[in-house]
């Protein structure tokens, strides 16, 4: 198994909930899609080409300060469990990890991980540069990413067209290649059924939403990933500031919805949330979706200050570490589905017992 302690902060510093609005916004990430000129795009490239892209990227990263202490993995040489683990930490995409049935694992697939920065090599595009932050911190995430993008672009020739901008395998990413997204918890809007209107509004604004794991993933536990839909025709800063404005508005609406819930249905909500807490605290078997949904309830209870003595950081850790590959990693062996559900309930139970021994309403 890979040694995750080598990663700066395990690659998940954003879990600590230290960022702005960490109570509602889990994380902010911005990514840029880039290709290296002179090679076919990843899907069309031969094995040798992908390996040459990797070696050029490795060489170019050597001189970049922000990536000085990076850790890298040849994803194509990792076992399935290790690849799943990196995916569960949001450090590699499903496609890079070879977990997507449409795109089998490619030779030359690699990831370079620095402090809150990640670079995937030989994903759909040669390069997917990614910056992650705790909470709602779009401009910080973008400026850190912009610096490394410029440094790398000074060392490697990116594919670029004066009219179409940075060229990408899929035309939906061309231009800036920028996708900014905010992972946000919206139980208030879901419970008050306002969410449909809010989501429809997002689409009219040229924004889109997805589940916890990005493209193609379902919404579970009331976590939505809101991001820009288009990448061409606006400057990077415009894309980022538009998303910022809309998310700030969604946060306001979520806060209003929570107030309405407490005012109009106080005891019903309180009962529902304590039941969620009780289930997590005492259940003996939990599926992933169940755990996500109950954790969403407890997170809301913490936000409404119904439950004291439990930190958002603990809840964030539960989100990541109660996933199947993380449980198997902790047990040191692969687990069947039943064993996974038992291990999940045990992990959630003991964590809550340890970290919220004094939770009171």
């Amino acid at each position: 198994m890979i040694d995750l302690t080598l990663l700066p902060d395990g690659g998940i510093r954003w879990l600590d909930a230290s960022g702005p609005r960490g109570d509602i916004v889990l994380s902010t990430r911005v990514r840029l899609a880039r290709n290296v000129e002179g090679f076919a795009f990843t899907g069309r490239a031969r094995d040798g080409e992908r390996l040459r892209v990797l070696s050029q990227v490795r060489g170019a990263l050597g001189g970049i300060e922000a990536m000085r202490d990076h850790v890298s993995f040849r994803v194509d040489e990792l076992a399935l469990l290790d690849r799943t683990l990196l995916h569960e930490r949001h450090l590699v995409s499903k496609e890079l990890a070879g977990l997507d049935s449409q795109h089998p694992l490619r030779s030359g697939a690699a990831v370079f991980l620095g402090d809150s920065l990640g670079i995937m090599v030989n994903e759909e595009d040669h390069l997917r540069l990614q910056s992650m932050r705790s909470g709602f911190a779009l401009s910080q995430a973008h400026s850190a990413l912009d610096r490394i993008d410029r440094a790398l672009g000074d060392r490697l020739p990116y594919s670029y067209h004066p009219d179409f901008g940075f060229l990408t395998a899929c035309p939906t990413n061309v231009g800036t290649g920028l996708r900014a997204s905010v992972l946000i918890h919206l139980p208030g809007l879901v419970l008050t059924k306002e969410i449909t209107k809010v989501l429809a509004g997002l689409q009219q604004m040229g924004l889109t939403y997805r589940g916890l794991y990005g493209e193609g993933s379902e919404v579970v536990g009331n976590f939505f990933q809101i991001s820009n839909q288009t990448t061409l025709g606006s400057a990077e800063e415009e894309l980022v500031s538009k998303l910022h404005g809309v998310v700030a508005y969604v946060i306001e609406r979520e806060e209003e919805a929570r107030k309405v819930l407490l005012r109009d249905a106080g005891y019903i909500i309180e009962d529902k949330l304590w039941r969620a807490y009780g289930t997590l605290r005492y259940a003996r078997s939990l599926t992933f979706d169940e755990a996500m949904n109950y954790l969403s309830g407890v997170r809301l209870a913490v936000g409404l200050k119904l439950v004291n003595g439990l930190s958002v950081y603990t809840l964030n850790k539960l989100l990541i570490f109660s996933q199947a590959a993380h449980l198997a990693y902790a047990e040191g062996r692969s687990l069947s589905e039943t064993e996974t559900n038992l291990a999940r309930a045990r992990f959630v139970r003991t964590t809550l017992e340890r970290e919220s021994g004094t939770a009171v309403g």
Partner: protein
Amino acid sequence: MLCDQCGERDASVHLTTIVDNEVRQQHLCEKCAAERGVETTVAVPKHPLSVFLHEAQQQAAPSTESGKCTICGTTMGDFRSTGRWGCSHCYTAFEPSMRELLRRVHGHAKHAGRPYEPPPPTLDERSTILGELKDRLRRAIENEQFEVAADLRDKIRVME
């Protein structure tokens, strides 16, 4: 309804813009909308790419683009089935339909983000790229793709 701009063609793009808190409705034909693409906000359809791909499948490929990208060999058919281009040259090889595609997907067909100038190639990179091009040339000749080979030979000459 006729286009507000040219008054000749049917308006098929209906724009609602808000300027200084004033709502304005404009009705434009495809051509005028494309020309003004940069300054308008076009509502983006939910699955613009799949809509385009579907429509592209319905139409026969235009004769000018029935060919392949001379660098990677990707055809319009390949793009229709995968939704992905093969290399950066595809954007030049299929330029006319690319502009239309990008306008549909993004509401714009022109980059407005940061400009970029690639670094001058180092000797090492030059020899890598040259090696790659010569490799492709050899394969093109083996496969009797003489048009592709001629293109590649020109590129190699420029680099040498």
